[in-house]
């Protein structure tokens, strides 16, 4: 009975967080899907999004949700920049090259970030109230973050399926050589995809900053979560990532009802390896 009420109180939280985790993973998995690159600079980019909220809200007084717009714009530009400088030359090289190239971007961002911001934790002192429904407490910031995630997911879907650049992105993801033959400007499309992936990561970071403290190093654990989610939802499947995020959120909500909280990462990562082995295309992907 106690476990049941624990579940009841923990699940909604897990689900709300799952949305935001899903948004972060969407950025990772989009890049993977389009260009088969695992972006190891994903974590620091999320952290940059967090600092985006911090500086806009704490220093300039911009509402965190309004602040998402400039953060998203900066995200796209930053992503394109990273693509052009670090990724484009190794896009056809073996995996190790692109992994290390993005890892060096990771080092550069963290190095500069540490010099400028130190590694101390920062807090965005922002609250959007909380709602109590029976025994369940829902925090306003998390509720809004979940809504924003849904908006972004919908937007991404429309962009990919209804616009010309979006269709180009899907064509390049499907078969780059064929898309090039059909006249798709693949370099620009790849850069745009990287920009979009980076934007999603930054926006998720910006949302996370409204409820969790963070430092320049904080992105690392969300990057690991994004890997897990990406694999759950199927690497390369942005919409699957949202469901993957929800599953992860639910797992994080459920496990503590039965085990000590410190077992959560054990189960998460064991599940991660298991799914890679059994269904590498993800829970929703076609069986290989």
């Amino acid at each position: 009975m106690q476990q049941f009420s624990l579940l009841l109180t923990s699940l909604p939280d897990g689900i709300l967080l799952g949305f935001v985790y899903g948004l972060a993973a969407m950025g990772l998995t989009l890049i993977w899907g389009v260009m088969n690159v695992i972006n190891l600079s994903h974590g620091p980019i999320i952290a940059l999004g967090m600092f985006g909220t911090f500086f806009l809200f704490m220093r300039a007084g911009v509402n965190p949700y309004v602040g998402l717009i400039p953060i998203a714009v900066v995200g796209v530009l930053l992503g394109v920049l990273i693509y052009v400088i670090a990724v484009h030359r190794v896009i056809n090289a073996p995996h190790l090259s692109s992994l290390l190239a993005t890892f060096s971007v990771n080092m550069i961002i963290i190095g500069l970030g540490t010099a400028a911001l130190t590694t101390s934790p920062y807090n965005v002192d922002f609250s959007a109230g909380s709602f109590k429904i029976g025994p369940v407490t829902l925090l306003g910031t998390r509720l809004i973050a979940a809504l924003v995630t849904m908006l972004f997911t919908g937007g991404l879907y429309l962009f990919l399926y209804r616009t010309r650049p979006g269709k180009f992105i899907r064509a390049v993801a499907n078969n780059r050589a064929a898309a090039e033959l059909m006249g798709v400007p693949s370099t620009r499309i790849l850069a745009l995809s990287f920009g979009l992936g980076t934007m999603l990561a930054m926006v998720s970071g910006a949302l996370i900053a409204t409820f969790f403290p963070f430092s320049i190093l904080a992105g690392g654990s969300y990057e690991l979560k994004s890997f897990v989610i990406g694999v759950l939802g199927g690497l390369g499947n942005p919409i699957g990532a949202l469901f993957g995020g929800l599953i992860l959120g639910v797992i994080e909500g459920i496990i503590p009802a039965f085990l000590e909280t410190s077992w959560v990462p054990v189960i998460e990562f064991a599940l991660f390896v298991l799914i890679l082995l059994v269904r590498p295309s993800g829970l929703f992907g076609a069986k290989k």
Partner: protein
Amino acid sequence: MKRSVFSIFTVLVLAGLILSACGSSATPTQEPAAPVAPAPTDAPAEQPAQPTEPPAPVEKTVIIGFTSSLTGAQEVSSKRQVAGFNLWMNQVNEAGGIQLSDGTVVKFEAHTYDDESNKERVQELYTRLITEDDADFLISPYSSGLTAAASIIAEQNGKVMITAGAAEDDAYKTGNTSLFQLYTPGSLYLISTVDMLKTLDPEAKVAVVHENDKFSTAVVEGLKPYLESQGFEIVLEEGYASETTDFGPVINKIVASGATVLLGGGHYPDGSTFARQLYERKVGLKFISLLVAPADSKFPELGDAALGVATSSQWELAATHTPEEAAALGKEWFGPTGEEFAAAYEAVTGDKPTYHVAGGYAAGLVLQKAIQDADSIDPEKVKAALEAMDIFTFYGGIKFDTSPEAHGLQIGHAMVVAQWQKNEAGELVRKVIWPADVANADPLYPIPAP
């Protein structure tokens, strides 16, 4: 063409860096003297020369070596500890150093590297401090884990190491002879809190929720048996991973367990997050005590979430120890008063000192006292002075265990309980609430509902 030019350039840059790396570490070999001879042999070599001439004031610079965490998980507390130490060092040097009876004037110089909160290079850096920088005495890094690795280097070189932010007990029970601990050991951290709770609410149901790391686990290992011996019911015991950011599930468990009091926490990042989410979720606990985080002056950044959160503190300005207290106990007093220390610190940094600052300062103070008592900078004599030390400072009593089983463990120091309360102006201030004789406020119990 362009590409290969660039490749060559990159190779050159890399080669240059490597060469300069080798070059920089090679430069000290150019010094004419053989630096291999350890510092201790220098001192006796000079002493016979002195009686032949009347003692002219000889100035000796003692080098203190330590690493600090400029980056990484331990950054906040580590920097405070270093700030405290530097304050002491500058004060001593500005005051003209320490006068020894043979006319030698001892001044201090600090050599330090960044350990990045990472054990990988700690031993390398401490070896470098001892052998290249010729450090005479060592201060520990911040945190028990880093200190354990560094202590082995101190031990093998016979260097005295004063440990400040290294509370966990195990490191002092390894049979070493060079470590001297300033902090009350981890296993005793929450004892005074439990004593206070006993007077406030002996029926309290306690949830023990802590970070799953070396220090916090050690604290809890000491706490649990004591809680039980005092007749408290532990309704929940839970560890959480160090990088935890979402405390929702843990908090739900606390609520479900029916606990009225929470004891636990870990370090700054997780502790501040935990406190904030406890507040956001309106858990309504009567009392919350977290390790480390509430002791930091950044804690009120949490706003109202900080209200009522208590911590075990190694030292609080409001309950600073006094010469009268020392006299009453029959102990020798040494160093500035707490007010003097706090004023000096505030003059330099504009910030109020925390116990980590006080710990860093006290590390220097203890060393100063030991050098004065030994009337020498000979490591063996200083070590003997440390072992014999039984003093009182603004930081409190200092006395080290000298038994071989737990050599260097702090046994003279007591902790206080501090709590964030609101003053008349509605500002958050940290008040000392226990022990009653030094308290400047009553415990806020239960914490008012948000």
